[in-house]
């Protein structure tokens, strides 16, 4: 081992750095240009004044200077604008959440309406008059009656006798033999009480045109509303000549007359 071997950092004097095997670096031969003369680039020949650019960009002199930017007022409103933006985002989130909940609720309500309620066309009947629906004339009266003996209700309950008279005026409606549905009493606040129909002797295939059939019923309401409750019911459009075997077919049901008419007897 020679003494020089540990000395890594000093250049070896006996060898060229480039290895000696490469040809000397010469500029590529140029046919069109003569080699430029050397020019001093760095450090600059003429020293720039302090604050000047060291980049060799030409200074634009003859364009109009940009409009002066209000430097001071621009800084303070920045936090305010940011806060306003955050508030806007928060308000938007709240509004969107409310809209989503409202849409869902309204959709559920529409579904409930569709499923739980029937289409209704209300026909108001003046006192003593008769109302006509599906070719049948209806008359009705509501009158107080004596409570039956041994009933379990006290003096705060009024017993009412319901008298419904039905007269077929249209030959085509003679087969509408069914009793009306949803017979109820309603007070002005919209609360309803049920009416229990008593058994009536009615034909099962055809009603006589022009004959009056009587349906009697009993209802109880609180004494306070006994004078204001109004009777309403939904006449049935079921026809006795509907073939029973077709009753559960879709076409039969679709061909049925809709029973959307509700008679209401004002007092």
């Amino acid at each position, binding site marked *: 081992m020679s003494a020089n071997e540990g000395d890594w950092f000093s250049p070896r004097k006996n060898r060229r750095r480039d290895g000696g095997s490469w040809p000397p670096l010469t500029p590529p031969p140029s046919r069109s240009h003569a080699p430029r003369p050397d020019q001093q680039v760095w450090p600059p020949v003429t020293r720039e004044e302090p604050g000047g650019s060291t980049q060799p960009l030409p200074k634009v002199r003859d364009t109009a200077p940009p409009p002066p930017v209000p430097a001071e007022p621009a800084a303070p409103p920045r936090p305010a604008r940011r806060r306003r933006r955050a508030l806007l985002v928060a308000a938007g989130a709240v509004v969107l959440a409310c809209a989503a909940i409202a849409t869902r609720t309204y959709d559920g309500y529409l579904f409930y309406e569709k499923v739980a309620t029937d289409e209704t066309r209300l026909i108001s009947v003046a006192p003593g008059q008769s109302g006509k629906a599906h070719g049948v004339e209806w008359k009705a009266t509501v009158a107080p009656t004596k409570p039956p003996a041994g009933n379990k209700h006290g003096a705060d309950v009024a017993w009412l006798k319901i008298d419904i008279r039905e007269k077929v005026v249209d030959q085509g409606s003679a087969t509408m033999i069914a009793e009306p549905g949803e017979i109820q009493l309603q007070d002005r606040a919209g609360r309803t009480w*049920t009416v229990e129909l008593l058994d009536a002797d009615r034909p099962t295939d055809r009603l006589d045109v022009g004959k009056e059939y009587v349906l009697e019923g009993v209802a109880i309401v609180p004494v306070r509303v006994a004078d204001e409750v109004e009777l309403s019911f939904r006449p049935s459009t079921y026809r006795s000549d509907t073939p029973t075997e077709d009753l559960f077919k879709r076409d039969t049901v679709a061909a049925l007359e809709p029973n959307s008419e509700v008679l209401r007897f004002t007092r």
Partner: protein
Amino acid sequence: MTATEERPPAVPARRGRRTGRGSGGSRLLNGAIGLLLVGGAIGLQTLYLSENDYTAPLTYVGDKGANVDAGRFTVRLNSFAVAKAIQSSSKTMATDNLFLIVNASAKSSLKPYHLGQPVLLTGDDRRFAATDRVDSGSTLAAAWVQPDIWVSGAFFFEVPASVLPGARVVFGLPPSALVEPYRPEVEIDLGLDEEGARKLAAQPQDVYSIVKK
């Protein structure tokens, strides 16, 4: 003067803000907030109601003797008794367990309803249906529950004496075809502890009569 200096000052200001936001502390804070939001979202997902929960009734809880308003209807549990047998107009039904007879009153708010048969909830949340040995026409379920008109009647359970401590009675509407969320129901505690239940079960009536006089 040079071109660099003539740039509007807004650009350096924004650049300054960007670097401020991206600094180590606030990036960590943003990450933490993000994790918090993600965790919150996942946590909220676990609160999502299943179909069973969604169709579960809304329970109004009350005590014996008090009017418990469930919105559509109001129920009051007046009294209860136990018996070894129930006598109806046609026959007398006996049991090895106990007949629990619950006397209740009810009215509604807007429309006429029928109440459904109640359920007995035991202290350890087991459920007992009302007995079908007593005709439902003899129970309060047969009566119309109408606005402002109180009606009273009884319901009947056939249960072992051991379930009486901590028992509650749940009144509701009868089952309907339309699945409706949050139907109201009323849960009334009988107020029986171990001691009271033992006393009650020790002295049952021999025969409870439901024959209408």
